[in-house]
């Protein structure tokens, strides 16, 4: 059995592979585990092997840290992730079982992108991805497939929110260098603007905020391997789950064509399920529904996105907000966050996301103009709100621009049938 700590995982069950164990991320109770399992030496593979033999499907309740593990023997394949993990793994069954930490690479084995679902659901998408048939391993989730003979899913379990909070609280974070953004005036906006398409392509999904490109820009400039996530990178997280779709998007509703508005039914259904779960949870005494959503869905999804960007640079993002106390503190302060955006209407037209969004009417792909109403009159009325909602308007522009880019050069070219 071979164990690897790596920055990338790709396993196709159809290809002949020996028994293996892959760890993406890090463990924080390794010494205690060695003692508990009576494993000597430094070998991680021996430790993980012993842990899987003892705890099997419950292994993520004993290994503390921020990780995703793939454990494969000749008979079975088990994937598991830590409580509130910021690492994630994508899997699909339609064309043989394939696992990957890279969504863009995974998208090459499927044919049906569903960017619209991802755009509407945002962080509430749970295990869904922008590609039909490709699922995401959630934090605290375990899946087990029988792979000898016919490949068959034999077990799946997700730790409850309470269980995950209790486990994450015990994680002792490794040392890492904080990544603080410089003042906005010192940020190279042209570089930021031009990073957006490449980043969207690498992540395999539209970008939702310029802050992600800023994070990417700073990561590429730092030599440190272990980066400590600062709360400023979480300010821009998409708050689509905080309010009902109509309320949060009424200011830009004119941009969405009827075909897109229809897909909000999916969002309503998801919200209904979540509201029931909220009522049943013990958190409803101390947190509002929006805070509960932010804590359990929005914040972890955003941290996963940042971890994905760090992975693209071969770096490890140490996430202090997997610890419930810190995450709760952040969630409660959500209203104090500044709404400042990166781009302004006064900026040069060529690298200004606001002007570039208006140009989509003339230069955008056919699909973009099929789904969104981008005539100058409509987009002007949206841009008028930039003064009051600078970050929201900017987020919409960036999403439209990167959606247009992906529909052109993305993992797959979209056709009308994909909507």
């Amino acid at each position, binding site marked *: 059995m071979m164990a690897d700590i790596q920055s990338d995982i790709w396993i196709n069950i159809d290809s002949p592979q020996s028994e293996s164990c892959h760890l993406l991320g890090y463990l924080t109770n390794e010494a205690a585990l060695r003692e508990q399992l009576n494993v000597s030496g430094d070998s991680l593979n021996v430790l993980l092997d012993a842990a899987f033999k003892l705890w099997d499907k419950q292994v993520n309740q004993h290994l503390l840290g921020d990780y995703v593990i793939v454990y494969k023997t000749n008979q079975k394949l088990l994937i598991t992730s830590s409580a509130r993990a910021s690492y994630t793994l994508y899997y699909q069954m339609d064309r043989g079982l394939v696992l990957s930490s890279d969504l863009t690479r995974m998208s090459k084995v499927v044919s049906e992108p569903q960017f619209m679902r991802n755009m509407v659901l945002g962080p509430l998408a749970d295990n869904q991805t922008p590609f039909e048939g490709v699922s995401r391993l959630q934090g605290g989730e375990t899946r087990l497939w029988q792979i000898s003979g016919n490949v068959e899913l034999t077990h799946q379990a997700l730790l409850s929110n309470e269980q995950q909070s209790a486990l994450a609280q015990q994680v002792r974070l490794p040392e890492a260098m904080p990544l603080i953004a410089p003042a906005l005036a010192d940020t190279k906006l042209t570089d930021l*603007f031009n990073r957006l*398409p490449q980043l969207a392509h690498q992540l395999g999904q539209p970008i939702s905020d310029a802050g992600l490109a800023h994070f990417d820009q700073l990561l590429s400039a730092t030599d440190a391997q272990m980066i400590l996530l600062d709360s400023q990178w979480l300010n821009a997280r998409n708050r689509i789950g905080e309010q009902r779709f109509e309320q949060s998007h009424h200011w830009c509703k004119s941009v969405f064509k009827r075909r897109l508005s229809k897909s909000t039914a999916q969002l309503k259904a998801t919200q209904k399920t979540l509201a029931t779960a909220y009522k049943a949870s013990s958190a409803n005494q101390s947190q509002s529904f929006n805070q509960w959503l932010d804590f359990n869905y929005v914040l972890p999804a955003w941290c996963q996105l940042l971890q994905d960007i760090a992975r693209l640079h071969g770096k490890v993002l140490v996430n202090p907000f997997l610890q419930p106390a810190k995450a709760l503190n952040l969630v409660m302060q959500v209203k104090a966050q500044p709404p400042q955006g990166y781009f302004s209407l006064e900026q*040069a037209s*060529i690298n200004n996301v606001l002007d570039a969004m208006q140009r989509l009417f003339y230069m955008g792909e056919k699909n973009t103009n099929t789904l969104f109403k981008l005539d*100058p009159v409509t987009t002007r009325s949206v841009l008028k709100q930039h003064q009051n909602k600078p970050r929201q308007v900017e987020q919409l522009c960036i999403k439209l621009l990167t959606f247009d880019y992906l529909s052109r050069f993305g993992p797959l070219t979209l056709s009308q049938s994909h909507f």
Partner: protein
Amino acid sequence: MNTLMIPARDGTELACHQYEAQPDRPAQTRLLFFHGGSFNSRRYANLAKACAKQGFEMVLCDWRGHGESQGTAGTCDYIGQLEDDVADIISYFESNQPMSLVLGGHSLGSAICLRYIKKYGQQKLTGCYFIAPGISSNLESVRYDGPGSKASFRLRFWRKKPSFNPAPEAALKHLPKMNNRKFLMAIMLPFLRHTKIMNFPGSAKMAKLEGRVTDYSFNLIASVSITDYAQVFRQIKLPIVLICGEADEMLNPLFLPTVYQWHLGPTLDKQLHMLPKLNHMSVINGASRILPQWLIDRWGQAPVQEQEQEQEQEQEQVAQEQVA
């Protein structure tokens, strides 16, 4: 240098100046080059020599009505005639001297090549190169705002242009002047489309000496303008290099980096060179250094001198081994 007179589909003879590679080493790749507006091929001889020296054949083509080509100076018969000329030149070489072909040009010559790609596709090409491409018919691509830019912005985006950045005196000396009134008249009245509506700067005496054409008609301007540049760049599937000076008087220095990132595919074999201190014309000197290397990296062989040196070294090694 050898000048060929290639007949276009209407019988007009187009002058193509062929700079062949070393006589003992026939080139495998041919570059077609289209000069910038107002000029002719003479101005680009150094670029052609630099490429020929590295083992590539370069053909400098004079637009119709320019240089040694036939045709009426400063106009063309219909909008789109220049890309048809490119197609005719390509067909000529395809039939008479077949060789893999790399297409490109400087300034408005690049715009003609982009229009050719849009109309005829890229099947006959193996690569393309654009030096300070003259994409000046869009508001976002130009460095300085012209007199009509506020109105154009309002028409295009339905809001007030937030800033106005006029060209300084130094830049105005190099920028062509458009007669907007005549331009609008020519749009409405087709019989005015051969009258001159744009004037390039410079003294008439010097222009005559250099063989430049200083007045352009509506038809000619429309034949070298490309408003849907984004769509054309997006459809390019060939190896491509973009070269521009950071001090270019015409192009916004942020324009080509944006084209590179947003409009050229993420997996395309592409290069962008923004050369400091060079302007719209002096960038040709910079291109003489960059373009040959870009060609060698893709289709080239070591230059003759280097190859001879390598052969000599090999012979010496063999001799030493024999002695040993």
